[in-house]
């Protein structure tokens, strides 16, 4: 029984994203950020997007390209401190930012991927972070309900992929990527290397193929993926 071939062209894959879509972007800092897919999304031009990403990269790279092109209506993130442009836009009212504690963001995304409605946690209880959240009391303990965070699309960067969409991530580039791949209705992956089916050992797959829809081989890595010189 063979496996479906999910190889796809980059423009074709990104063209699926309509105005108003919610889009998850993998990455924590540079590692795992799908720069080429983001660049194509800028070219494609879909507007009014809700972007979900751990951080807003640094000014002039990654998600900042989408901010500068005015395609982002709302950003759901854990922090934007390294991107002065994002801070400026937020303060000017040009960008709605929803801040979520980092681990809660990860867990809300995973929770969507797990197909449950959300989870209950005591994180933030007793501080203003819990304000406005639905309170759930369990055996006398107070928690808040954190709803699952779904998205229409996830754009991921993988170190290696096979044509069925089994993925492997390098080192700390894994971060939010497998969670987002599970949580999105449609998952698009750019891979540094597309290897033959079976070349990734079944025990070493970081995100199984059933969660992945489109696999795009990157011809070469632009400089933005490299080490940041400070």
């Amino acid at each position, binding site marked *: 029984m063979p496996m479906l071939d999910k190889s796809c062209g980059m423009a074709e894959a990104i063209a699926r994203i309509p105005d108003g879509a919610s889009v998850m972007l993998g990455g924590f800092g540079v590692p795992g950020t799908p720069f080429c897919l983001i660049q194509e999304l800028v070219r494609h031009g879909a507007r009014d997007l809700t972007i979900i990403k751990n951080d807003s990269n640094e000014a002039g790279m990654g998600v900042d390209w989408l901010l500068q092109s005015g395609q982002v209506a709302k950003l759901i993130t854990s922090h934007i401190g390294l991107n002065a442009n994002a801070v400026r836009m937020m303060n000017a009212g040009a960008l709605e930012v929803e801040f979520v504690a980092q681990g809660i963001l990860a867990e809300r995304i995973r929770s969507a991927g797990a197909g449950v409605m959300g989870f209950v946690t005591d994180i933030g209880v007793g501080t203003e972070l819990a304000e406005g959240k639905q309170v759930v009391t369990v055996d006398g303990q107070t928690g808040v309900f954190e709803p699952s965070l779904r998205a229409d699309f996830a754009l991921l960067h993988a170190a290696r992929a096979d*044509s069925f969409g089994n993925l492997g991530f390098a080192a700390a580039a894994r971060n939010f990527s497998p969670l987002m791949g599970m949580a999105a209705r449609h998952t698009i992956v750019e891979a540094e290397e597309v290897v033959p*089916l079976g070349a990734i050992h079944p025990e070493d797959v970081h995100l199984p193929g059933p969660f992945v829809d489109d696999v795009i081989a990157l011809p070469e890595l632009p400089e933005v993926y490299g080490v940041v010189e400070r």
Partner: protein
Amino acid sequence: MVSLNAKERMLRRAAADIEAGMTVNLGIGLPTQVLRYVPADLPVCLHSENGIAGVGPVGKPDRNLIDAGGAYVSPIAGTSYFDSAVSFAIVRSGRLDLTMLGAFEVAGNGDLANWMIPGKFTPGAGGAIELAQKTRKVAVLTTHTDKKGNPKILEACTLPLTARACVHRIFTDMAVCDVTPEGLVLREAAEGVSVAEIREATGARLIVPDAPLPVF
């Protein structure tokens, strides 16, 4: 008693619903046997609850590689293994295109009972509940009647439910029926089986189209 011929016909007909590119979970028993009638070159990803996508054929036993039914299966090119939470994430998040399950009883509205007979058989539901409730298309594969000749397709289930209104299609040795908003619709009849015989063996109200029925 179901003739070997009728059973094979049912399995072959069910297999025809497995389409290229699907991710599929096949329950223990009859559903697993459907595999024999799926073309060898059809791209399909078989999922097993214990943490496999891309289940290969039963093969040379590897002590670490069973499917959820306990059969020694093999990997294929593109198989992946994962933990049980990820396995059911695939199920609950709607990544399974199709599941085929057995049934004790199935109702005309799609209610399914396949895990418990109070006082007689209460081994626990395993993964059936989530498969039934969350798979995009749930097909039941069953003999049309039980060993005593009583209908297994009922107006309402009498046994504890696995999930409510979850079944989309029923394959039996006599017929193919669909659960629709209008009710249970007879779609196809097995070769040599009349509509009257199907009605007789069915415990639920059955809508029979005016047009001639395809035969399988």
